[in-house]
C-alpha cells in the first residue's frame, strides 16, 4: 500500500480457522514466541505484536481461530469485534487482513473467507500446509484461487516457509476484494464453484493409504479403554523420563556449583560478604539451577507430543472421564497446559463456551502440577525413595496423578454445589497426524528454559539475598554453654578431641544465631500451624518464602541450612538431606517429606495465579475460594499422609 499518510501505522489482523497456522505466521512476522500447537483453539485471546518494515510501523494482531464470525462462541465474537475495527485505533489507521487458509481441509475455510471478503477491507491470503495437502491427495491451484477471490494469494508450503514469506510484497499487494459472494443462499454455490476451480486431485492411491492409516490410528487412540490406557501410559512415560533422564546432568550442575562455593569459601576471608556470596547467592541460585534439566526435558517432551496431533485424540478420551465430574472436554487442553504453568492454562479457558464449565476449570487448574513444583518433587522423592530409582520414578509420576485426581474431584464438588447445571457437548476437529520436528521442540524447550533461568537470576536471587540477611541478623551473642565448650576445648590436651569440641561449639552457635534471626523468629511463630505436615521452623520459613514464588522453596531452604551448616559448601541437595532440626533429628525424615510433598502438590502458593483467577473468573471471591480451598485441602491431606506414613512405621 503506497498510500502516504501522516500516521503510517498499518494494522494487520491475522484471521482464519483454528489450527491453520496463524500464530506460526505471527511469530515469523514479529519474531515472537507465541504458543503454537497442533490442536485447534490454542490462541484464546488476541495477541498483539509489532515490527518495522518500509519505514512503517506494523501492528499485528493474532486472533483466535474461528469457523465463522457469526457463531455464538467466545472466539467468534472476539474476532467479530476486532474486525469491526472500532475503538480508539480507528482514526487514520490503515487496516489490512491477512486471512490464513489451510490447504488441508480446504473447503472448511470457505465460510469465514466469504464473510471476510464482504468486509471491504484490504486483504491478502496465505495458504498454509500445501505440502501436506498433496500427501492427502489434492493440490491447491493458487493462481486460480487468486483470480476467484480477487485478492493476492501467497503460499507457505511448510512451516519453515513462513519465515521466508515475502511480507513486504504481501502488504504491498493487499487489496480490497472485488469478488464478493452475495447473500447466504448463494454462498453454497460460490463455495462449490471455488472448490471445483481451485482444488485438483493428485496421487489418489497414496492419499487413500494415508487416510486408512490415520483412521486405524484414530480407532485405537480414541477407543474408550485402549485410548485411556494409552493416554495413561503416555503420561507415565513422559513424566517418568523427565525424572530419570535428568538425573545425570543435574548432578553435574550440582557439583559445579559446589566447587565454585568451595573455591570462594577458601579464597575469601570469613565475614558477612562471604556468607552472603556463598550461602545467599550461590546457594540460592544453585537450588534452582539444578532443576534446569528437568524443565528442559518436560517442555521438550510436551511440545513433541503436542505436535504429533495426539492431544486432540487424548481430549476425546479425556472427555469421557471428565464429563461425570462436570468438566467439559474443552477443559482438557487448559488442564494439560497447566502442567507447564497454571496461568496460560487459565487464559486458555476463554474458549470454553459455558460459563459454569469455565469457572470450574479455572478453579481447579492450579491443582495440576506446574513446572515450578518440580524442584520440590525431585527433592522429596529423593528422600522418600533414595535407593530405588524405579520406586522414585513411580512416586514422581504419582505426584502428577494426585494433583490431577484432586483437581477432577474438586471440579465435581464445585459443579454439584456452587455451579450446578449441565455441560455442553464438545465439538473438536481432529487435526492430522504429523511427525514432530525435534528442532522446533528443542527451540521451545530452550525458550522456556531461558525464562526459567532469567527467573532464577532475578526473582529467586533477590529473594535469596533478602532471606539470607533475615536468617543471619540479628546475630545472637554466644551463650554460656558455648563459652563453656570453648573453654573445655582449650583445656583439652588431645588436639583431635579439642577440635571436636570447637566444632560443636561453632555449630551450636550457628544454630542459635539462625533461631534468633528474624527468619528464625518468623519460622518459629508459624511453626505450630505447619508442624502437623512435618515442618520445623526452617521448613516453615521456606514454605512462607515460596508463597512469593513456588520454585524458591529449595533455594531458600538451601540458604537457611547453609547459614547454619557446619560444612561450607556441600552440593545443595545433599546438604539439605543432611541437615538437622534443633533437636538433632533429621530435618526431613520420610514421613515429614511425604506430608510436605502432598502439601506442595496441592497448595495454592502462587500470587500471580490468584490475580489471573480473579480477573478471568470476574471477582476476587473466586480467587479467595481457590486459595482457601486448595490450601486447606493441601494441609489436611498433608497431615493425613504424614500420619499414615508414621503409622506404617516411617519416622516423622
Amino acid at each position, binding site marked *: 500500500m503506497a498510500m502516504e499518510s501522516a500516521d503510517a501505522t498499518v494494522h494487520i489482523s491475522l484471521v482464519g480457522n483454528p489450527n491453520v497456522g496463524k500464530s506460526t505466521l505471527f511469530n515469523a512476522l514479529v519474531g*515472537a*514466541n*507465541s*504458543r503454537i500447537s497442533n490442536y485447534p483453539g490454542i490462541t484464546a*485471546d488476541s*495477541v*498483539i505484536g509489532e515490527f518495522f518494515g518500509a519505514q512503517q510501523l506494523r501492528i499485528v494482531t493474532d486472533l483466535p481461530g474461528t469457523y465463522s464470525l457469526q457463531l455464538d462462541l467466545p472466539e467468534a465474537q472476539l474476532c467479530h469485534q476486532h474486525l469491526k475495527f472500532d475503538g480508539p485505533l480507528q482514526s487514520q489507521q490503515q487496516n489490512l487482513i491477512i486471512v490464513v487458509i489451510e490447504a488441508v481441509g480446504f473447503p472448511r475455510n470457505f465460510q469465514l473467507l466469504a464473510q471476510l471478503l464482504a468486509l471491504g477491507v484490504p486483504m491478502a491470503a496465505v495458504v498454509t500446509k500445501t505440502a501436506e495437502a498433496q500427501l492427502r491427495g489434492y493440490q491447491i491451484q493458487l493462481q486460480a484461487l487468486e483470480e476467484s477471490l480477487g485478492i493476492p494469494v501467497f503460499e507457505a508450503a511448510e512451516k519453515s516457509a513462513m519465515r521466508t514469506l515475502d511480507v513486504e510484497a504481501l502488504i504491498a499487494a493487499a487489496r480490497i476484494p472485488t469478488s464478493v459472494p452475495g447473500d447466504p443462499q448463494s454462498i453454497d454455490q460460490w463455495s462449490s464453484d471455488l472448490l471445483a476451480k481451485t482444488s485438483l486431485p493428485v496421487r489418489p492411491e497414496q492419499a487413500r493409504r494415508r487416510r486408512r492409516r490415520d483412521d486405524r490410528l484414530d480407532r485405537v487412540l480414541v477407543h474408550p479403554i485402549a485410548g485411556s490406557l494409552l493416554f495413561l501410559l503416555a503420561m507415565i512415560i513422559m513424566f517418568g523420563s523427565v525424572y530419570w533422564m535428568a538425573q545425570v546432568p543435574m548432578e553435574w550442575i550440582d557439583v559445579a556449583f559446589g566447587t565454585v562455593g568451595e573455591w570462594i569459601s577458601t579464597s575469601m576471608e570469613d*565475614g*558477612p*560478604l562471604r*556468607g*552472603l556470596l556463598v550461602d545467599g547467592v550461590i546457594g540460592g541460585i544453585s537450588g534452582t539451577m539444578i532443576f534446569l534439566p528437568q*524443565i528442559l526435558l518436560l*517442555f521438550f517432551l510436551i511440545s513433541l507430543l503436542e505436535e504429533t496431533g495426539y492431544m486432540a485424540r487424548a481430549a476425546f478420551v479425556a472427555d469421557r472421564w471428565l464429563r461425570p465430574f462436570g468438566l467439559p472436554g474443552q477443559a482438557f487442553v487448559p488442564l494439560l497446559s497447566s502442567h*507447564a*504453568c*497454571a*496461568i*496460560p492454562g487459565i*487464559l*486458555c479457558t476463554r474458549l470454553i463456551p459455558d460459563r459454569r464449565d469455565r469457572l470450574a476449570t479455572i478453579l481447579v487448574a492450579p491443582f495440576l502440577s*506446574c*513446572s*515450578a513444583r518440580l524442584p520440590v518433587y525431585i527433592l522429596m522423592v529423593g528422600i522418600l525413595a533414595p535407593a530405588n530409582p524405579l520406586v522414585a520414578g513411580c512416586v514422581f509420576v504419582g505426584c502428577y496423578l494426585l494433583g490431577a485426581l484432586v483437581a477432577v474431584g474438586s471440579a465435581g464438588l464445585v459443579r454439584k454445589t456452587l455451579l450446578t447445571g449441565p455441560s455442553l457437548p464438545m465439538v473438536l476437529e481432529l487435526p492430522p497426524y504429523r511427525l514432530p520436528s525435534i528442532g522446533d521442540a528443542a527451540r521451545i524447550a530452550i*525458550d*522456556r528454559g531461558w*525464562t*526459567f533461568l532469567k*527467573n532464577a537470576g*532475578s*526473582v529467586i*536471587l*533477590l*529473594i535469596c*539475598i*533478602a532471606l*539470607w*540477611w*533475615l536468617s*543471619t*541478623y*540479628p*546475630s*545472637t*551473642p*554466644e551463650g554460656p554453654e558455648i563459652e563453656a565448650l570453648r573453654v573445655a576445648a582449650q583445656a583439652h590436651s588431645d588436639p583431635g578431641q579439642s577440635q571436636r569440641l570447637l566444632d560443636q561449639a561453632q555449630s551450636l552457635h550457628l544454630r542459635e544465631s539462625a533461631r534468633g534471626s528474624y527468619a528464625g523468629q518468623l519460622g518459629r511463630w508459624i511453626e505450630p500451624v505447619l508442624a502437623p505436615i512435618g515442618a520445623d521452623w526452617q521448613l516453615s520459613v521456606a514454605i512462607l518464602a515460596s508463597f*512469593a*514464588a*513456588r*520454585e524458591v522453596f529449595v533455594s531458600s531452604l538451601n540458604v537457611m541450612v547453609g547459614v547454619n551448616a557446619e560444612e561450607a559448601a556441600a552440593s545443595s541437595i545433599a546438604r539439605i538431606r543432611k541437615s538437622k532440626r534443633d533437636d538433632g533429628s533429621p530435618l526431613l525424615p520420610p514421613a515429614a517429606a511425604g506430608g510436605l510433598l502432598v502439601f506442595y502438590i496441592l497448595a495454592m502458593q*502462587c*500470587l*500471580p*495465579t490468584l*490475580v*489471573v483467577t480473579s480477573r478471568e473468573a470476574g471477582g476476587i471471591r473466586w480467587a479467595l475460594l481457590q486459595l482457601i480451598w486448595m490450601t486447606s485441602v493441601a494441609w489436611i491431606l498433608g497431615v493425613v499422609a504424614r500420619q499414615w506414613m508414621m503409622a506404617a512405621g516411617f519416622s516423622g
Partner: protein
Amino acid sequence: MNQFPLSDPQFWWVTLLAVAAVVLLIVKRVRQSDDQDQNGSCGGCSAK
C-alpha cells in the same frame, strides 16, 4: 559479638544489598502484574 556488627563495613554492604533486593523485588512484581495480560506470560513461575 554484637547483634548487628555496626562497626563492620561488610555488614553495611550486605544490608545495602538486601534492601536493594527487596526494593527490586517489589518493583518487579508490580511491573509484572501490569504486563501479564497480553500473552499470558506468567510472573511467578518458570513457564509462559
